[in-house]
C-alpha cells in the first residue's frame, strides 16, 4: 500500500484563531480514512484547504507526489480529488439527469460544442446514465433535483462527485440529517465506492466510522491528537477526553 495523499504541517489561522494547526496527515491508496473530532476541531476548515477553498496559512498538500497547495478548486478537481458537502449541494433547478451529465461533461474539458454537437456527447450521456444507475436514481432521472427526498439528494450529490472519476473522494458528513434506513444505505454505497476510490470522510456517526474506516485521525482544537485503527482510537485516553471533556 502506498500513500496517495498527504499534508505536511497544514495550518489555517483566522486572526488569532488557529482553526487548523500543523496537521500531518497521510492516506493510503484504496482505504477509507475517517477524520473525527468534537465541534470546532477544524475538520471542515481542513477539508476546505484540501479542496482549494481556503489557502493554507502554512504547510503543504501533496497528491500523488505533486504539490497542490493553493491551487484553485476547479484545478484540484481536475487533478482527481472530488468532494461532497455537508449540506446537499446540487443543482436544484435541473433534472437529476442534467445534474449528472454536467458533472460528467466536466471531465471532457472546456470544449463548448455550440454549433456542432460534439461526438463525445454520446459518451457523456452513457456515462451519466451509468452513474445514475450506480447511485440508484434511475427511476428519478427526469425529476427536478430540488424535489428529491433528502436521502436521494445525498445520492445525487455522491453521483456528482464520482462523475469526475476522481482518485480521491472527500465526504463531509455523508449521513447528516438522514434517517436510520438512509444511513445504512449510504454505508453500503460508501463500501461499494471504496472498491474503486480512496475515501476520506468526516463523520459523527461512530458506528459508521468504526465499521467502515481502516484509519482514523482525531482532531481537536485544530491539532491532530491521535491516529490509528478503530480499536486503537477506541482505547485512546486522549480521544476519550476530547469527546467527554475534562473537568476544568
Amino acid at each position, binding site marked *: 500500500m502506498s500513500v496517495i495523499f498527504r499534508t505536511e504541517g497544514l495550518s489555517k489561522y483566522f486572526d488569532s484563531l488557529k482553526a487548523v494547526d500543523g496537521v500531518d496527515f497521510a492516506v493510503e491508496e484504496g482505504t477509507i480514512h475517517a477524520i473525527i473530532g468534537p465541534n470546532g476541531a477544524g475538520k471542515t476548515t481542513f477539508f476546505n484547504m484540501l479542496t482549494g477553498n481556503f489557502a493554507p496559512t502554512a504547510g503543504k498538500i501533496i497528491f500523488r507526489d505533486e504539490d497542490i497547495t493553493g491551487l484553485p478548486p476547479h484545478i484540484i478537481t481536475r487533478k482527481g480529488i472530488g468532494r461532497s458537502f455537508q449540506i446537499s449541494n446540487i443543482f436544484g433547478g435541473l433534472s437529476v439527469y442534467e445534474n449528472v451529465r454536467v458533472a460528467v461533461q466536466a471531465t471532457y474539458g472546456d470544449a463548448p460544442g455550440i454549433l456542432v454537437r460534439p461526438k463525445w456527447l454520446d459518451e457523456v450521456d452513457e456515462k451519466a*446514465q451509468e452513474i445514475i444507475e450506480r447511485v440508484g436514481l434511475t427511476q428519478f432521472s427526469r425529476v427536478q433535483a430540488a424535489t428529491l427526498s433528502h436521502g436521494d439528494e445525498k445520492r445525487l450529490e455522491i453521483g456528482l462527485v464520482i462523475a469526475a472519476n476522481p482518485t480521491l473522494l472527500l465526504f463531509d458528513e455523508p449521513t447528516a440529517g438522514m434517517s436510520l434506513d438512509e444511513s445504512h444505505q449510504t454505508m453500503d454505497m460508501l463500501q461499494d465506492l471504496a472498491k474503486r476510490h480512496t475515501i476520506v470522510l468526516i463523520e459523527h456517526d461512530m458506528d459508521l466510522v468504526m465499521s467502515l474506516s481502516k484509519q482514523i485521525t482525531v482532531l481537536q482544537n485544530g491539532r491532530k491528537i491521535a491516529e490509528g485503527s478503530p480499536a486503537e482510537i477506541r482505547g485512546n485516553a486522549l480521544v476519550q477526553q476530547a469527546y467527554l471533556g475534562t473537568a476544568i
Partner: protein
Amino acid sequence: MATSALSAHRRSSWNGLVPLAAWAIVLVLLPWFMQHVLKSNVALATNMLIFGIAALGFNLLYGHTGELSFGHAAFIGLAGYFAAYQILNHGWTWWPALGLAFAATMLFAFILARVIVPRSTGIYFSMLMLAVGQVLLFIGERWNAVTGGDDGLQGIPRPTYILPGSPLNMNNELHFYVLVAVIAWLATLFMWRVVHSPFGAVCHAIRENKQRAEFLGYNVTRYKINAFVLSATLPAIAGVLLGYYDGAVNPGEMNWTESGDIVMMTLLGGAPTFWGPILGAGLFKFMQQYVSNYTQFWEGYIGIVFVGFVLFAPQGIWGLAEAWWRNMRAGRASKTAGAPEASAENAS
C-alpha cells in the same frame, strides 16, 4: 425504465426540431395575425421581433446563467451607431455595415466582459452594467461630430436588395418583415444551440449553484465571460435592424430605462425559459402600441403589470404555462402508471 433517460435525452436533441419548426410557422403567420386578428400592422410585428432577438440574447446571461445586466441596451445602441455611421458617412451597404457593427460591438463586449465579470457579481454587477450603459449614453449625447448628439444619426436608408437578384425591397414593410423574420429564426436557432449545448448546460449549472459548478472542475469566471459575450451577439444584431427599422439611431436607445425595458420583457415572458423573452418582447411591444393609443402614460400601466409579475409570478407567462403543462402531465401520468415522472425539462 432503465434506458428511459438516455433515450429521452437522445430524443431531446431532436426535440428542438419541433419547437423551431413551430416557431417558423408562427413567423410566417404573424403578419397575417397582426393585420387581421389584432387589427394592427406588419411594422409592429417587425418591431416585436427585433426586441425579441435582443431579449433572447440578454436572457442567456440572466435567465440561463444567472447574472442580471441593467445595461444591455448599450449593445443595441452601440451596434446601431457603428452601422449608421458607416452607412451615412461612407455609403456602406447592408452586409458590410452589419458585419462591421457586429464585429465592433463584440470586441467591445469582449473587453467589457474581461473587465467587469471577474470583479463583480449579483446586484453589484447590475449596477456596474448600468453605469457602463450610461457612459455610452452620454458619449452618444455629447460627441456631436460622430454621433449627431441628442438628435442622433438620421436618414438611414433601408437596403434595397440584400441578395443579388432577390425580389425583396426593404421599403416594403412586409419585405422588411421577411428579412427580420429570417434573421430572427436564425438567431433563435443559434441561441437554441447555445442553450442546449454542453456550454449551455454549464451555464445552467452556474445559475443553479456557482460553487458546485466550480467543484466539478469548471472555471466559472471564464464561462460567465463567454456567456456575457454571447449574450451581446443578438442585441448587436437587433441594434443594426433597429437602425434600419427606425431609419435613425439616437442616444436614448442606450438609456438605462431601455435596458430596464429588456429586463421587463424577459421577466414578463419568463426568464427561466427559452421562449419567454421572445414572448415577453412581443407582448411588451404590443402593449406599448395598444395602450399608447388610449393613454400617453402607457409605461405606467406596463409598470403595474410588470410589478404584479415580480410580486406574484416571477417565473413569467411561459414559466406559468410550463408549470401548468407539467402538472397536467404529472396528473395524467400518476393516474395511469403512478410512476414518479414530474419532468423538469429545463429551458425548453
